[in-house]
């Protein structure tokens, strides 16, 4: 990271020099500034009344412009040609996506939810306590997770960085505060740089803190957002920055470890047993790999559960198995989720994630699973509407081409003056 910042500084100097040359060329006499094109909305009328956009559709085609590579310019598209493109795209993409149901998706669709890990790394500006900024400094923050549940411990690090690399710094204070009742109760948090308490290397100016909310009376029974304001001195100035995470002290349910499976309607149903302590609406996610450890599916449970021992049903959709040539036995892993409480804040109580392997299914002979696409009233309704839109747009384009209706072009959307 230090090398990266140092290299950037060198680049800055070079670019500054180039910028000066460019500025001189730009201001050289005889060079006209480029003219902005007309904005979408008309200018104020002579009566002084607010301008009204009456020209959102223009009948005259926008002028052809030469392509940058000198090839023949493309003719502008009419509004109906554009609408046809989007309607066709909407239909095609919807059909492609809805081969599988919403609750059993290819895991490739979940780039940031491949596992239960929620590690955070971010680089923030150096904001002084009086609100002014130091543009030459940044604060690098990491935290082991965005959510802390029950007895889990959060690890946080902070370092001050300039163009030269990591700068000497001192953490002046840190404390935990509930949101939104900030400041009513606080627990001091110690950041160290002495190689202890989770700190990787003494004296490297990367300050570390371990914080276990469950050990603080402040968070007894707490559920909600927590922020950790940190005051840090660096290069002669003091900055105030924040770590943020969500803490659930008491989990509403737990996975007992019991799983059963059944082939149902050409798909593999997976029943995971939960001990539910609080009844409610549960939203849970489970990942599935195939026998070759190829990541395959992201399956979801989204339903009410009463108190007691109950099974949450996940589905590994048959066509997903077939299309991806996934080999059984399937490996279930990384279960997480929460009890969802609609229309309130906080809107959830997290379960403790089960990271890593959970269960391996039986093997199944070829042909066990169906390659039939997902069907539902919802899908039929959407496909019918999108198909109608494509048909209508095609007819309009044909009417334009035959001269039956005039060709209309979209408005310019040049930036405002």
């Amino acid at each position, binding site marked *: 990271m230090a090398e990266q910042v140092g290299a950037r500084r060198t680049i800055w100097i070079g670019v500054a020099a180039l910028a000066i040359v460019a500025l001189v060329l730009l201001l050289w006499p005889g060079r006209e500034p480029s003219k902005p094109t007309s904005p979408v909305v008309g200018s104020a009328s002579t009566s002084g009344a*607010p301008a009204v956009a009456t020209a959102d559709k223009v009948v005259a085609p926008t002028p052809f412009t030469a392509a940058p590579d000198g090839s023949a310019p493309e003719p502008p598209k009419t509004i109906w040609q554009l609408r046809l493109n989007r309607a066709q795209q*909407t239909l095609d993409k919807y059909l492609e996506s809805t081969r599988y149901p*919403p609750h059993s998706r290819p895991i490739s669709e979940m780039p940031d939810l491949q596992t239960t890990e929620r590690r955070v790394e971010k680089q923030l*500006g150096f904001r002084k306590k009086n609100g002014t900024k130091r543009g030459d400094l940044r604060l690098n923050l990491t935290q082991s997770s965005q959510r802390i549940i029950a007895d889990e411990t959060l690890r946080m690090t902070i370092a001050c960085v300039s163009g030269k690399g990591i700068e000497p710094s001192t953490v002046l204070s840190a404390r935990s505060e509930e949101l939104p009742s900030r400041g009513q109760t606080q627990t001091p948090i110690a950041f160290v740089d002495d190689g202890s308490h989770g700190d990787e290397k003494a004296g490297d100016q990367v300050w570390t803190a371990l914080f276990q909310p469950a050990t603080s009376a402040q968070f007894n029974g707490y559920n909600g957002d927590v922020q950790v304001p940190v005051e840090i001195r660096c290069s002669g100035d003091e900055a105030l*920055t924040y770590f943020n995470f*969500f803490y659930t002290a008491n989990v509403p349910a737990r996975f007992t470890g019991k799983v059963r499976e059944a082939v149902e309607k050409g798909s593999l149903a997976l029943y995971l047993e939960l001990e539910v302590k609080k009844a409610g609406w549960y939203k849970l996610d489970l990942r599935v790999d195939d026998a070759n450890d190829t990541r395959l599916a992201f399956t979801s449970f989204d339903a009410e559960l009463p108190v007691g021992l109950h099974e949450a049903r996940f589905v590994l959709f048959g066509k997903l198995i077939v299309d991806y040539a996934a080999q059984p036995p399937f490996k279930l892993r990384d279960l997480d989720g929460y009890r969802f409480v609609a229309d309130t804040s906080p809107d959830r109580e997290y379960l403790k994630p089960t990271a890593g392997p959970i269960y391996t299914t039986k093997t199944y002979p070829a042909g066990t699973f169906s390659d039939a696409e997902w069907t*539902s009233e919802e899908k039929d309704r959407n496909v019918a509407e999108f198909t109608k839109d494509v048909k209508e747009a095609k007819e309009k384009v044909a009417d334009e081409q035959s001269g039956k209706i005039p060709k209309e072009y979209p408005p310019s959307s040049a*930036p*405002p003056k």
Partner: protein
Amino acid sequence: MKRVLAAALSTLAAASVFAFAPEAGATNYSLWIHGRNTSGLGAQGNYADFAYWGPSSYSAGVNKKSVNWGGVDRISPSNYRVRDALDCFCTGSNWCYIAAHSAGDAQIGYTLAMYGGSSRYKKNAVANSSGVCGNVDGTTQVGWNIKWIDVAAGAGGGSELADAGEWFVSDNLTADLVTTTTRALYNHNTTRSKWLYRFAGASGTLYSGLLPGQDDEVVSYHAAGGVSGTSGGSFCNPGDWFCDGDLYTGSNGTSSGRPLWSYQTVDFRDDGESYNHYTNGSWGGIVGKVRADMVTYAY
């Protein structure tokens, strides 16, 4: 006096809407979901009040409706306003195009992820003074009838202005706009297979010390472009050497390999650094680009 007059006009406008509102039958609507709104523009539940956006006389897609959800409370407790609007105009035989600005991105994303598969009563598109419409026949459907979503300066990935405490004193919504919080608030990849067309502005300068990469003075490209991950990042226009990577147009993510959330596409990237975040009471900034898009495609 001005406030009394405004209230009277607002009431009159609302009354006129209810008096002449019956828009039944198979109809398409354009729903505009606003962002953070500390000025309190737009009466909640009044779908004709476009005070947040600009003059209501402007074209902004077929049968435009303003979804006024407040803009200061946290996403979850204020989300019912969005669901009320979707129930009103996007069920039964009616269909919707959605446009969202800033925190409106988080609102529609949250709605689709949390409630997209829920059972909804089919409504008649005639709203009462609270913005709730009557049932058509007591039957239900799964989810809403949405064609696609346009997003101007989306804050579904949060804003470092919330991270840094720039907004702390003013409203509860800020707590949800912390980058790590917004990104954990809902599964951004779950849109019920509906696409989000993203429009990202880049004319920001005021907060360049706080907002990483290209920004529009409130959100950075990582949020406006729908870049996935637990936190933001520094993404820019091509040719800028001081970022983690370029934000690509389309659905290809960034040059550094960070993908977008699924069902997102960057329809407009502000290479000219011309568009900021603010509507300025006149459909301004990057909202102007989305308005033009809605005029073209929402018919």
